[in-house]
């Protein structure tokens, strides 16, 4: 089954019709998506700003990241689940939306980078003077910011 076949099938499922036609379903799921953003963005910001030496300088990076891990993973799960539901409402519209495609691309890059190279650097408890942790923090911030900007753009373009 091709992607388009799947999306056409999805469009006619009960869930998709309900999400599209209900007055509040989409809005409520959007609200959950934004609450997830607060948690995910907060956890990412604090760890990356720590890598850059801006906040909580006395606390080892690895321990800080370990402490914030549940917020990060919990919020990411909320965002993925709510985001999937939102996409289910208008599968074909999003399939052809440049902003949606861009968001999925940057999201894939951000997740891939964050849970491989970035995680390895964080767990190695880098010393403040080395450059790689700072580069990793900036790359992470730029990628996640890109996901957010492209995500907001879906509603407009």
């Amino acid at each position: 089954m091709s992607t388009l076949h799947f999306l056409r099938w999805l469009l006619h499922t009960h869930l998709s019709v309900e999400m599209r036609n209900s007055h509040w379903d989409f809005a409520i799921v959007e609200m959950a998506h934004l609450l997830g953003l607060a948690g995910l963005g907060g956890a990412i910001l604090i760890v990356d700003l720590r890598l850059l030496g801006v906040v909580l300088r006395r606390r080892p990076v690895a321990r800080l990241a370990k402490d914030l891990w549940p917020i990060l993973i919990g919020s990411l799960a909320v965002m993925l689940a709510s985001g999937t539901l939102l996409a289910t409402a208008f599968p074909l519209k999003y399939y052809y939306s440049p902003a949606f495609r861009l968001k999925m691309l940057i999201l894939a890059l951000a997740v891939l980078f964050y849970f491989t190279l970035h995680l390895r650097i964080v767990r190695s408890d880098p010393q403040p003077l080395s450059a790689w942790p700072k580069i990793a923090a900036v790359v992470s911030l730029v990628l996640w910011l890109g996901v957010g900007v492209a995500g907001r753009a879906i509603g407009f373009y």
Partner: protein
Amino acid sequence: MSFLHQFCLFLYDSYVGTTIRESTNLFPVIETVHVLGITLLVGTVAVMDLRLLGIVLKDEKFSDIAGSILPLVWIGFAIMFVSGFLLFWSEAAKSYGNVAFRIKLVLLLLAGLNPLIFHSTIYRKVDSWDDAPVAPVPARISAVCSLALWAAIIVAGRAIAYGH
């Protein structure tokens, strides 16, 4: 017509309000800043609240975390206030009667009162509980109120676009 209503109409019809409203990109750009500012304001506040509740960063002094993270909260607040006011400026005539908008303003007022009460009461004795993994009950109540209020502000904020 009330003074507030007249003021909203004045803002709506002003040069700045009209420019933002009629531009193709200004409103989306400001709104993107406003939405992503949530991470800097609410994300950081939430981490402090969760520390008070003893859920994260338990072995760190609360005053150390607050001292380090509060500047971020203020930067986030400044970004949210400016971008939010610009959005309101362009929609003031509609915002005035919008129920979600009115609820959001009341919630913002309460969310602002909460830290004022926190700082003038339980935080004065922070030396006695700074090291404790879980803060005393009044501080935990403040943390729960903060989390609930900010979550409700996000929900009400999103509802503005669906309101009448």
